[in-house]
């Protein structure tokens, strides 16, 4: 019997030897890196142009990032479940159009207009959700089609033009400040906190991660996948509507196509923030960082005074650079 129990003693060390708590949750790493990249952008710009990076400038960046921050929360939730929402741009336009059309430049109707606009946008999201969850249509086609369809409906109803100015109260909200800090920045902070809690603190959020991680297991376990899917797309519609209303307030009027330019950035913000496109991974803090990064980047690009071609090359290059920062070659590839 060649029993070598001599090693038994040291065996106890084994995997128990776990290092102290990691200072950063692994899923917060991309968020931290992207935030760092954002700061690096600001600092390097400040070196080039000392006028850059003043408090007003930072406030301007934050205020103009608010649309992206709000809309990409919804996009992030959808992506978390393994879907995608391509109707966000259209829904933003519709939200803004409803607000403009109902308030007609006075504050009287605002209390009715706000819920109506949000409700309509949520309803479009819910329709998306039903298409995806019940009819089992691929999210890409479902949301693309519903975007196209509702754009057509919006055109037919408004003949394509924004008829009326937006309620002054909304405009004041977007340009006012409290305690020396612009109201939209307050809004941004509150929204970010709520969104983080919702996505990463609640039981519902947890279930979304489960669903995105393994739809099969979620089904076997009896998670309400249909309901959650519908809720998530509804939330995306709601966020898009909210972003649309804010944008309408900001520019004091609305057009149906005003959200189109924001669709791609919402997706970009989510994936740059470290979320996985196929679902199940990524935190809202990452999305927030991604949105702030993109907003800062576009400010920097604006300040650079280059031809649009060069701006694009630099912008795209910096996005890829930020991704390279996150790459982890030693990590096992899935």
């Amino acid at each position: 019997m060649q029993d070598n129990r001599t090693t038994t003693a040291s065996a106890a060390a084994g995997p128990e030897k776990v290092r102290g708590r990691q200072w950063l949750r692994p899923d917060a790493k991309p968020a931290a890196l992207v935030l760092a990249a954002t700061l690096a952008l600001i600092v390097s710009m400040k070196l080039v142009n000392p006028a850059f990076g003043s408090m007003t400038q930072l406030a301007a960046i934050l205020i103009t990032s608010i649309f992206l921050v709000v809309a990409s929360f919804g996009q992030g939730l959808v992506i978390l479940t393994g879907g995608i929402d391509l109707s966000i741009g259209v829904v933003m336009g519709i939200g803004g159009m409803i607000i403009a059309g109902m308030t007609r430049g006075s504050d009287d109707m605002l209390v009715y207009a706000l819920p109506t606009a949000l409700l309509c946008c949520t309803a479009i999201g819910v329709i998306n959700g039903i298409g995806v969850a019940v009819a089992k249509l691929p999210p890409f086609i479902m949301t693309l089609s519903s975007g196209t369809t509702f754009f057509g409906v919006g055109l037919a109803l408004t003949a394509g033009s924004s008829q009326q100015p937006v309620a002054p109260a909304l405009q004041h909200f977007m340009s006012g400040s409290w305690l020396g800090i612009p109201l939209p920045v307050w809004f941004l902070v509150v929204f970010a906190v709520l969104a983080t809690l919702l996505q990463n603190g609640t039981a519902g959020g947890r279930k979304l991660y489960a669903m995105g991680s393994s739809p099969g297991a979620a089904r076997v376990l009896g998670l309400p996948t249909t309901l959650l899917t519908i809720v998530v797309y509804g939330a995306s519609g709601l966020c898009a509507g909210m972003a649309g209303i804010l944008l309408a307030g900001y520019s004091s009027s609305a057009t149906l196509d005003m959200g189109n330019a924001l669709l791609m950035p919402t997706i970009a913000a989510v994936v740059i923030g470290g979320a996985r496109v196929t679902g199940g991974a990524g935190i809202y803090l990452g999305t927030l960082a991604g949105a702030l990064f993109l907003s800062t980047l576009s400010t920097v690009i604006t300040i650079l005074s280059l031809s649009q071609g060069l701006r694009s090359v630099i912008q795209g290059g910096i996005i890829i650079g930020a991704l390279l920062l996150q790459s982890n070659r030693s990590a096992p590839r899935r």
Partner: protein
Amino acid sequence: MPVALQVNAISKSYGATAALQDVSFQLERGQVCGLLGENGAGKSTLVKSISGVIRPDSGQILLNGEPYSPKSIVEGNQRGVSTAFQELSLVPTLSVALNLFLPHPERNKLGLVPARKLEQQAAGILEEYGVREIRPSALIGDLPLGVRQRIEIVRAMMRKPSVLLLDEPTAALSDREWLFGLIDKVVAEGTSILYISHKLDEIRRLCSRCVILRNGHKVMDSEVKSMTDDQIFTNMAGRSAVETFTSRASVIRVDAKPRLEVRGMKGPGLEKVSFKLAPGECLGVAGLEGHGQSNLFKALVGLSPVTEGTILVDGTEVSLHSPREALKHGVTLVPEERKSEGIFSDLSTMANISMPVVDSVTRFGLVDRNAERRAVTAVTPSVNLSDRFLSYGIGALSGGNQQKAILARALISGAKCLLLFDPTRGVDVGAKQNIYAMMTAFVRDGGSVLFCSTELDELVHLCDRCLVMYRNAIAGDVPREELSQDRLLSIASGFRPGSATMPASRVGDVQ
């Protein structure tokens, strides 16, 4: 005897986890060496290091006396090492034939892969290895797990390796003799085999030697014959226990309404199934793979369509169209396919387990981590899952530990009726005892268990009664006192009590 494989002091860490530390052993030509260890001991990691899937951090390997450090699994294959993996490595959307010939199927002059020809060849190979009932053009994803396990094994063997690594090859097999026959044959041809299993009887049947790992270290390397079960067990777990089944008294509550009653259930792959499951009862389901057990389990929670029949829970007729409804009626399923239907691989083990109760461990709408931990740690001891795994992503856990987590999740859900599909698959001996104890305690507290297993001795020892499925129908209902492996096997193979005709096909008529 010449040494086929020599492993010298290899180590491998995943982050802070040292999966292997200074492990050395050697495998002689024509030898079957057992590799034993608790879940997470590092067995699969060792196999992956040898097969070229991962590269060890340090140490070296000699193959037939020559240095061997495969950069890829293909290189391993070329050098004569092939593997049947624990988490099967077949591509679900490809045909059986293509899977067999991956990664480099034959090409014709045009560079095309001739599907027909490969299917013919595959048919020949499957025939040669005694897998007769599979059509080579069938997609892997359409086949039951047990059949996939066979194909995985055949694929490893057909390459005629000099070193064959089998990582828990019998986990999903109900017909182990098939494998034993093949192993005997290839060993006679001079192949060396590293054989991983949690089943001691298999080790005793096949292996002359065994290596035991614990927490990444080799703790024992010895002749099997010279070891008692108790010694092996002590080496694996560091404490003494024996793999035994303590007989227990029946706790069936005969007076109560049946917890679950199924009448004339029909559906795809299910023929007129009826049975009753009382509170306090552990009802077994036996059968060779592909005879409808998994359809039955799935149909009971609405994952497989039911065309006819009724289901009653506690005497009232209910519809269980989805796992969600089933859970509302206190019925929950521990599924067969851990990888795609069990785990949420991106979530921590804690979150995986707490999922059914996550709604109730909240405070102010937010998940209360302390309450969550309390709820989870209340059930983990029953499945012997160490608390230190709770903060890990479940994807980083060993297969057996993942299985324990899923069982813990079923317990935490508060269901009164557990449908356990092979709950001890891939679970180590110690943990098995815990799972048995868990089941025993569960029925003692008035719960009901419907229990399917590929290991007949489990059924024989744990069940109050055992249903045997054959060709998608219930072919026998064996009461406790008549339970024996032979009896179950004969019914499962199609022998009717009192009939002497041989069944047409041994493993179902999958054609």
